[in-house]
């Protein structure tokens, strides 16, 4: 029994890792006022590029870097449409998702079902991994796990404790006031969207080269959408995103615990999505003012308008 619980929690951490990466990216993006619904598509692009590059070169980290570069590049489309052209951000984001899913399917066609033989070794942190229970769960994980947590903490520090962070948050709250203070709102927003895209692609890379070590079309399986929901659930705070993401990671793997009890596996597979609906429902009961959503989230900024 003990083993089952430890291994379930261990897997929950692994399943939560891509959610955390994508959520952190979306938080940075949304704090600057841009809603990016393209996470799912960018994740798929990241997954396929990481897989192909790793397979060809044999270096997983090269794959990761290539995936992030691709994710950032494709996010520029959304940035251009929503910031420069001031288009509807929902439409542009949805388009990015469709583009990403379609493009990844096309590029990845020859690689479907091929196993990845290169492995990313788990890192057993000295001493810490010897702690009973916690050591196995938290301190002998793959490198993506540590990376995700480090990036989430760094993002929190960036947003709350640096000058540029204040500029990003101010841009999302009141771009006009921010601009009168001499800050380039357009640049801040571009930067945020592109960084967010890099995070999403990183999440995708984790899926294909570390989590399942294979590529199949549609393998992101709605995780991008869950990340968008988690952004709200975490109240746009990367620190809170850490436990929110791993909670959802737990929901992803709890099905393996419950299957022996005779519950239909099809129902169990729905759990993460039901839970997403549930938290969105829960959060909608909260006073919108206390949610602290960026005030100008989703609103294009027109300089000339008063």
């Amino acid at each position, binding site marked *: 029994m003990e083993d089952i619980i430890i291994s379930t929690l261990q897997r929950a951490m692994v399943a939560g890792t891509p959610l955390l990466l994508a959520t952190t990216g979306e938080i940075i993006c949304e704090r600057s006022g841009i809603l990016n619904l393209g996470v799912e598509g960018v994740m798929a692009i990241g997954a396929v590029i990481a897989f192909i590059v790793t397979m060809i070169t044999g270096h997983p980290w090269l794959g990761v870097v290539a995936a992030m570069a691709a994710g950032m590049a494709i996010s520029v489309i959304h940035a251009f449409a929503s910031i420069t052209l001031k288009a509807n951000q929902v439409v542009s984001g949805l388009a990015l998702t469709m583009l990403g899913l379609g493009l990844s399917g096309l590029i990845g066609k020859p690689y479907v079902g091929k196993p990845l033989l290169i492995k990313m070794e788990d890192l057993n942190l000295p001493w810490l991994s010897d702690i009973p229970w916690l050591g196995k769960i938290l301190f002998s994980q793959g490198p993506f796990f540590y990376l995700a947590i480090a990036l989430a903490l760094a993002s929190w520090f960036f947003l709350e*404790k*640096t000058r*540029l962070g*204040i500029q990003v*948050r101010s841009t999302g709250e*009141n771009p006009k006031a*921010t601009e009168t203070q001499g800050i380039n709102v357009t640049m801040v927003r571009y930067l945020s969207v592109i960084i967010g895209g890099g995070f999403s692609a990183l999440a995708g890379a984790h899926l294909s080269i570390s989590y399942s070590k294979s590529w199949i079309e549609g393998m992101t399986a709605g995780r991008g959408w869950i990340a968008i929901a988690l952004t709200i659930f975490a109240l746009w705070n990367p620190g809170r995103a850490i436990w929110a993401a791993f909670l959802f990671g737990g929901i992803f793997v709890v099905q393996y615990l419950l299957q022996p009890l005779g519950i239909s596996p099809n129902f169990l597979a729905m759990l993460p999505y039901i839970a997403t609906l549930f938290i969105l429902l829960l959060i909608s009961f909260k006073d919108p003012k206390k949610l602290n959503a960026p*005030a100008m989230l989703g609103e294009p900024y027109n300089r000339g308008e008063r």
Partner: protein
Amino acid sequence: MLSRLFFKKSIMKKIKCLEMKSISKSFHGIPANQDINLSIESGEIVGLLGENGAGKTTLMNILYGLYQPDSGQININGNRIRINNPVESISHGIGMVHQHFMLIKNHSVIENIALGYKGTPFFFPKMKIREKVHLFSKKFDFRIDPDKKIWQLSAGEQQRVEIIKALLNGAALLILDEPTSVLTPREIKELISILRGMKAKGHMIIFISHKLDEIMEICDRVIVLQKGKIAGSADTKDTDKKSLARMMVGRDVVFNINKEKLAKGKKVLSVENINVNGDKGLPALNNISFELFENEILGVAGVSGNGQRELAEAITGIRPILSGKVKIKGRDITNKSPRCIYDNGVSHVPEERIRFGIAPGLFLYDNAILKQHHLKKFSSRYFLRYNRIKNHTKTIVNKFKVSTHSINTRVRNLSGGNIQKLILGREVSEQPQLLVASHPTYGLDVGATEFLRKHLLELRKQGSSVLLFSEDLEEIFELCDRIAVIFDGRFMAVLDSDDERLCDIGLMMAGSKKI
């Protein structure tokens, strides 16, 4: 003490004198500033007085780098400079506190200040800024909690945050745009003492206002703008409110009535002691009472933002009335629905015609019956009778000379003047008892203005009454039988338009005289 001295020296930019020379600026061919000269020296407070639209804010936006002047130049300490954007303006030592604060409501005072301050460190910016805010609070006696969020602060405190922002960036010249319009009387006193303290420390201040009392109290010198030109300037100690008011309004009031005399008819509207709140939940109208009769136009004069919009909305049912009564021909219509009030014979030409007067994406004929679609003649059960509607629209278009190539076009394609003609045509087509017209000719060209004014007089002749809100005194004097002057939610006077006491209308609009 030593550190304070050092602090002051290191931060305040040195401007001994600043001059704006023969500045002109026009928008789309309409001049907003014409050949304006202004100069200010260290330790001086200069008032910029004028009505709305006189060009005060345009002039200051030029100084702050938001607009470029068409001609003229700006000198600091005798050297010509160019100001291309606010950042350059700040670096020259100019700071501006906008009428609508440029603050991020959900952020703390510190975060707002750190945003624009050039010396903000990259890591842990809040620690350093907290120190600075404390220093400033002491220096100018500000009393402000740097960790509070902006939305938790009063308007006066928010204004102080804006002032700190400007001072931290080294502003030697501070421009305050209508700084007292959002403050309580006590906060105004505090602001005045802060400004005096800054003056003593060598800052120069440009104080924009249309309130005479404040200008007289705070400023050393006043420059009066009227219709984009300098109407005069004077040292406050050598002038009085009356002559300033005359300069602001532009002339001794001339009576130029070419409308025919009509005897007052029966009473149409009576407003009894109404109290109404503004958008922010603060009182906007204070015990307003008046009556309006058939064949009469009552004009409400005043600087905008003194309760005109709230009064129009209260009468037409858009804004709740807290206490008091509004009656039409003896029927109580207080807090009835806008449609019910319309059906009782009250029409409304609203202030912002595009936002509230029409549905821009709908066709001309749809807009022509926006308020009458429920009438039997335009609809039967669930369906609209488009034949009749289109005929009705054609009648309006012809009668009111709306120039459009077809009634099957979307209203957003029409010019402002034509939209306004259409709205007026729609509003008067049911022969209203009362027409509430808010700034009906605002922004229209001469031809359309003339046309609309004639129609208001026509309506008066037909036995209706009109409640006219306008900032254009010429219009008020030309059209109205009686004139009410509104200031701060109260009527300063309700007088016949040929009453000689209206010579002081400028004083009344500025709140310095009540009859």
